[in-house]
């Protein structure tokens, strides 16, 4: 078997030793032990990076969910936001965010080394690259959550500013508190024993609460709330696409949660099972709740129920049992329905339910990781979980609110009413999502 190898210049020959192909170990015990370790390392890389690819694909899922749940006249804008928060997020997380989140910290509050992927040098240990790849797709997930809540009325250029700040600062700073020690950092929250295996809080609540701030600062879409205080739904334009998006997200979560081991081991089996059970339970519970409340099994709520279950199991996927996962998912499914209704009632316009799915259920999942801890219930553990939830809210909502207020009072956050009515696709992008006239050709 011949394989392609990195084109290594002679000067970097050291690398060759590090990546010696495990297939030809010599017979002495020490080198054999190294060879075994090398193979395990290779599996770890493969698993971590395949998982990263699955998480990357969640961008497509978010794009489909968001465009499905919003109107045709804004579909191009949604696509551009999803493409660009990943593309710009990648660059900002590379330049700044990763260093803040995982760098060694001079201050104790955030990292200050490792910007521009400077922890890697040619010939050095490539683990930082694999780890960065896995982390960047998480950062982008946090960023893209906000897109849905701010859909159909946000200026595109202002969105880009937000997106850069989130990827470079808001997300990484909190991330450094909870996960910093996974690399060179050392977060105070994880020091207290905060459990958030794959990011119910770190990724989803942070995204969800920034989304809440954004939706509040922006105000509702024109026509969403009647003058008499009534709630007027603004239906989306393509529910099959939204459903496709949910399936893609569910798939992506099989990278998101079990991939968070960043190592190939047998732990991933339970994480897979828990993830799947919670999602299933969330979908079923949301369907039933909606059925009882509205007399019909509502598709939007059922889809959001699946996502709510996924978000909720993200924190505890590695320390709760499969049975508990079902309970967590069921509660998430009920919660998301009530939460969507609640935010409608208090007149926060969140077109896709991002705050309810990611913010509220991120918090629920983080609490649940404490409550259902397989190691046994402990008030102290639950206390730390509650602390983490509160800190995440304060940080994300607070910084998000300030950021959006700043943007609003400088370059402006919202498009003009005319543009909003005509659709952002034309106003922001000079485009139309479905330009072809003969859409339905013959009968």
């Amino acid at each position: 078997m011949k394989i392609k190898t990195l084109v290594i210049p002679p000067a970097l020959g050291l690398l060759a030793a590090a990546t010696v192909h495990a297939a030809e170990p010599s017979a002495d015990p020490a080198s054999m032990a190294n060879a075994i370790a090398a193979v395990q390392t290779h599996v770890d890389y493969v698993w971590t990076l395949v998982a990263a690819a699955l998480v990357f694909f969640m961008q497509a899922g978010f794009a489909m969910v968001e465009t499905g749940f919003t109107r045709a006249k804004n579909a191009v804008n949604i696509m551009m936001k999803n493409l660009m928060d990943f593309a710009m997020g990648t660059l900002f997380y590379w330049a700044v965010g990763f260093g803040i989140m995982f760098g060694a910290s001079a201050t104790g509050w955030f990292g200050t080394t490792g910007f521009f992927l400077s922890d890697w040098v040619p010939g050095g240990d490539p683990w930082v690259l694999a780890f960065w790849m896995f982390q960047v797709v998480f950062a982008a997930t946090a960023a893209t959550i906000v897109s849905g809540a701010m859909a159909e009325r946000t200026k595109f250029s202002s969105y880009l500013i937000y997106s850069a700040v989130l990827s470079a600062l808001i997300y990484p700073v909190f991330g450094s508190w909870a996960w910093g020690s996974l690399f060179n950092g050392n977060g105070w929250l994880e020091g207290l024993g905060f459990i958030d295996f794959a990011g119910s809080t770190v990724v989803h609540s942070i995204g969800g609460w920034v989304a809440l701030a954004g939706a509040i600062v922006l105000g509702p879409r024109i026509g969403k709330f009647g003058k008499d205080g009534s709630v007027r739904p603004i239906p989306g334009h393509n529910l099959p696409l939204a459903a496709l998006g949910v399936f893609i997200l569910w798939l992506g979560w099989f990278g998101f949660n079990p991939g968070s081991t960043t190592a190939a081991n047998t732990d991933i089996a339970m994480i897979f099972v828990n993830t799947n059970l919670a999602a299933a339970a969330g979908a079923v519970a949301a369907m039933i709740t909606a059925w009882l409340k509205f007399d019909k099994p509502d598709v939007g709520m059922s889809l959001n129920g699946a996502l709510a279950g996924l978000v909720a199991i993200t924190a505890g996927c590695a320390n709760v049992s499969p049975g508990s996962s079902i309970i967590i998912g069921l509660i998430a499914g009920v919660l998301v329905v009530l939460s969507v209704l609640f935010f409608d009632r208090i007149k926060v316009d969140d077109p896709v339910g991002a705050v309810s799915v990611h913010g509220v259920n991120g918090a629920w999942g983080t609490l649940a990781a404490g409550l259902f801890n397989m190691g046994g219930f402990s008030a102290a553990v639950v206390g730390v979980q509650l602390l983490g939830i509160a800190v995440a809210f304060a940080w994300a909502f607070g910084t998000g609110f300030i950021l959006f207020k700043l943007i609003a009072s400088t370059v402006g956050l919202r498009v003009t009413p005319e543009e909003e009515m005509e659709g952002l696709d034309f106003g922001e992008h000079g485009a139309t999502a479905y330009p072809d006239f003969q859409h339905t050709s013959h009968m």
Partner: protein
Amino acid sequence: MKKIEVIIKPFKLEYVKARLAGLDIQGMTVSEVKGFGRQKGHSEIYRGAEYQVDFVPKLKLEIVVPDNRAEEVVTAIMESARTGEIGDGKIFVIPVENALRIRTGEEGDGAL
């Protein structure tokens, strides 16, 4: 000539078409429209909020016929489009001064 404009329930198209074929009607033009009338739209649910869909999907048929055929066509449509339920639709008869066939330039009844 008369233009007979008909608003019907979409699934009635086949019936009306078959009936008109029986009368040897040569042509018609159909479009999708939304109707607003006594037949109330449904209330639908969207992500937990109920809302009234005021407009009901309908088809509009336009059939231009010589004056002397208007009545039988109207009767045929009336019979074939009827279900007896609210929302069956309307027939409007509108005067047409001239008709031309683009291909040949024929005018009047011969163009139909």
